[in-house]
Structures are given as structure tokens and as C-alpha cells.
């Protein structure tokens, strides 16, 4: 299916870009007039995906994070976050809530947040090649009011 609108954002994996990434995606989706909750869900999921690239895929070294946001008919939004980092050996394990390989205070809930805040989440990864996270969300059809 072809999107009716699309944007591609490539950014360097600086942690200061985490806020830029989620705000940029939210701005693009604003044309669908989503609810505040939908916008917040999407911002949170994007923040998790981009943080994973920075913390895990590139392990704090600077490389490129590739984001594609596509809008389809019927108010479906698809967001792809891709990196060319280290990849994930065991995707199933990585997606388990509370599992984390990062030390410090990472909660290990990144994928759990993406999964619960979006409708669909798929993770494709190849060790040493990189990871692609694809998330889709159906926005609600609410009655337009002037209020």
C-alpha cells in the first residue's frame, strides 16, 4: 500500500536529538489532527525507539538514525526507526519487559512501551548489521467539533 504522505528524517545519534526526533514526528502527524493522547503515545514510542539506537545500537558512538513516518488512508500511521548498529542477537529476549543489557538505570521497558502505546510493533535485526523497528497506529475517527 502506498502512503498518502511521508517524511524521512536522518539524524545523528546524539542524545540531545531524542527530543527533536519525537517532536519532529509529532509535528508531521499533526496534520491528521490526532488526540492529545495519541500524540503523546506516538512521541513516547518514538523516544523509546530512538533511545534504543543511541544507547544500544551505536553504544553512545555517533552514527545515523533513520526515521520514516508514513501516513496511509484511514488514518493509519507507520513509523520506522532504523540503525546500522550492532544488531540484536536475540530479539525475543530483548523484547521481554525488564530485560536490559545496558547498565545504569535503564528500566528495560523500551519495547514494552512501544508495544503498549502503538497498535503493532515489529523488530527485525541482524547481528552486526543493524535493527529496524516498525510501529503502526490507527488514529481514532472522532467527530470534528469546533470547540
Amino acid at each position: 500500500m502506498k502512503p498518502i504522505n511521508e517524511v524521512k528524517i536522518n539524524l545523528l545519534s546524539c542524545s540531545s536529538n531524542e527530543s527533536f526526533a519525537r517532536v519532529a514526528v509529532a509535528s508531521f502527524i499533526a496534520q491528521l489532527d490526532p488526540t492529545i493522547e495519541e500524540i503523546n503515545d506516538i512521541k513516547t514510542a518514538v523516544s523509546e525507539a530512538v533511545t534504543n539506537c543511541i544507547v544500544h545500537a551505536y553504544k553512545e558512538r555517533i552514527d545515523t538514525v533513520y526515521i520514516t513516518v508514513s501516513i496511509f488512508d484511514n488514518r493509519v500511521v507507520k513509523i520506522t526507526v532504523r540503525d546500522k548498529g550492532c544488531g540484536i542477537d536475540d530479539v525475543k529476549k530483548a523484547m521481554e519487559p525488564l530485560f536490559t543489557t545496558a547498565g545504569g538505570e535503564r528500566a528495560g521497558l523500551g519495547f514494552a512501551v512501544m508495544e503498549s502505546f502503538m497498535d503493532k510493533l515489529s523488530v527485525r535485526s541482524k547481528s552486526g548489521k543493524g535493527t529496524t523497528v516498525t510501529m503502526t497506529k490507527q488514529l481514532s475517527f472522532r467527530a470534528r467539533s469546533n470547540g
Partner: protein
Amino acid sequence: MPVNIDVTGEVLTARLEGELDHHAAVAIRQEIDNTIDSARPTLVIIDFRNLTFMDSSGIGLVMGRYKKTQEIGAELHIANTSPQIYKVMRLSGIERLAVIDKGGYKNETNK
């Protein structure tokens, strides 16, 4: 600094401001821990009222402070979580460990 800390008696209140993500968390964590170490409070309140966004980095921050307060025998309260913040928070099961006071916010995402 995206956190404002005040100590009154044995109560330490840390008011978070702006957005809490992986980038912001490091400085906030250090600031709170330094003040806990010097003030030795019996109650730590993390106030989310002026926080406009939080991802799972916020859970890490709260979990870490929970451990820290346990170590010194203090209690941890979480105050004024907006619907967006509460929605992230409840994924962690932190409610079983710390008191969450949603303040004036209606619990509209609790579904």
C-alpha cells in the same frame, strides 16, 4: 537544571521540569542523589507537576531513587503524574513500591 530541589525538615521534594528522557535523566539523577546524600531525608517526594513529557527513562529514575531511599530507610512518594506520565509509570509496576499521588489529574488513561 531540569529539577528543583528543596529540603524542609526531613522531607526532600524534587520538582522535575520540562522533559525527562535518557538525555535529561543523567543530570537529574545526580542532582537528586547528591541532595539525598547530604540531607538524609526520611521522605523523598518526586513531583511531576511541571514535567511535560516522560519516557521509560523516567521509570529508571524512579526505580533508582526507590533503591536509594530503601538504603537509607526513607519513604518515596510520587506526586502529580499527568495522564501521559502515569500511563508510562504503570507499565513498571512501581505502584507496588511507592505511593503515587495523581494530584489534581483525573485518571483518564486508566483503562
